[in-house]
């Protein structure tokens, strides 16, 4: 199976923590963003792990993962399993002692990229587009700020990683333009899953899986009303960003319900 030919992923339900059947089947296609919500311990990470290992009824949940609508041959599961899924989480850091450019070149070489220079330039440009603070290719990856390294990881995953599936466990970092980051993944036709407690991110998906007791308790599709609400939540989020910026740039914040105080610019 070629990784590039992965057009859809289907997950058939297993059982929840109490052994009750999880009566859900879900198909996600290239370019889809699916959000995963639910309380602590409700099984969100377990669900992502099932996708990562291409569960074939052989994990604790009994779920099965189909690719392009068909079961995956066991030998393929073993050989391709690792490369199918790229993961990004808040606790991941760069540890290699190289500049951003040197490291990206190394990654491009390992991918046997036909145009390593071009792809490295494209990743740096995309990362700068996502990051609040700009950086050049000469800076060591271990010196990047939290926001910059998150931005570089997302750009690199979108543009250079071969994996058609991207799993994101909480990227709440204020230094990254999350909307643009998701747009980039969609544009590169990744099948994306995001586990999050952040309403802004949760509302960016085309669907939400709601977890409870280790199983999918509901698949929530935004209605017209929620789409409008999402726009409102985004406005508030942008307002937050402006307040943050005011404080970051040494300003005094005059904001509040009193209309006289509403002049941040």
């Amino acid at each position, binding site marked *: 199976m070629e990784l590039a030919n992965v057009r859809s992923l289907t997950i058939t339900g297993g059982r929840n923590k109490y052994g009750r059947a999880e009566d859900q089947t879900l198909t996600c296609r290239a370019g889809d963003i699916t959000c995963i919500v639910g309380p602590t311990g409700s099984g969100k990470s377990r669900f992502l*792990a099932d996708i*990562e290992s291409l569960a074939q009824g052989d994990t604790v949940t009994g779920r099965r993962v189909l690719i392009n609508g068909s079961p995956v041959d066991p030998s393929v599961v073993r050989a391709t399993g690792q490369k199918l899924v790229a993961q990004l989480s808040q606790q991941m850091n760069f540890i*290699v002692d190289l500049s951003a450019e040197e490291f990206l070149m*190394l*990654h491009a070489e390992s*991918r046997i990229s036909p145009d390593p220079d071009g792809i490295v330039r494209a990743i740096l440009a995309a990362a700068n587009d996502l990051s609040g603070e700009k950086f050049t290719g000469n800076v060591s990856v271990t010196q990047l700020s939290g926001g910059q390294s998150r931005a570089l*990881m997302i750009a690199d995953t979108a543009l250079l*990683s071969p994996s058609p599936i991207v799993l994101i466990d909480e990227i709440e970092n204020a230094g990254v333009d999350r909307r643009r980051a998701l747009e980039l993944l969609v544009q590169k036709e990744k099948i994306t899953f995001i586990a999050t407690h952040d309403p802004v991110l949760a509302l960016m998906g085309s669907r939400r899986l709601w977890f409870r007791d280790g199983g999918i308790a509901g698949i929530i599709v935004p209605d017209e009303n929620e789409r409008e609400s999402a726009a409102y939540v985004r406005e508030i989020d942008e307002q937050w960003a402006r307040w943050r910026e005011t404080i970051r740039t040494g300003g005094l914040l005059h904001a509040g319900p009193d209309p006289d105080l509403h002049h941040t610019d």
Partner: protein
Amino acid sequence: MRLITVAGPPSSGKTAVILHLVQAAQAEGVRAGVAKFDCISSDDGEIYRRAQIPVCTGLSGGLCPDHFFVANIEDCVAWGKREGFDLLVTESAGLCCRCSPHLRGITAVCVIDVLSGINTPKKIGPMLRLADIVVVTKGDIVSQAEREVFAFRVSRANPRAGIVMVNGLTGQGITNLMRYFREIPDMKSFEGSELRFAMPAALCSYCLGETRVGTTYQIGNVRHMEFPRKEGEEP
């Protein structure tokens, strides 16, 4: 009984991986035990016991740990058979990167962590180059790109091996490792079994307990380093 040899640098996550692996195997009804090899001391025996996994520990003390391993592996297997195990896992630290405890015909696993750096796969030697499965741990704290570069370098050092990413803390990835292990055949006997890689050609005065420094005291298999020379300088 099936036998698996697990080796890897200190603190690479061998114990963490074996714990998850044995628990996954136990959940499938497999009776499993661990034989732990170390040099000076080891706390792993206690860790396995606490997880209710039967364990025996061998400390090589003043002997070369890998020589100690081959000299004792048969007795370990006999112990495992007496205990009625279906699966025996050996854990040993690869300390000098020159040796490897892997045996022909016995599934060999090397555990290595991504934090050890991208040049490590080519430095590790036969323990990694001759393994059947390379388990890569600690991927949870580095970037996707570093995981990919690391896995690529492992596959360059050992193109035959299956590479499995495992998170030693959560056990994520064990599902994949179990898919390899379910296919391991039963070992028949040790008759005619062989190391995959010869142990170092040692036997110098220091092997025999010499402690004094200086050429006068060096007998046997001794080799001296070469140093860069200025032009025209006599060796």
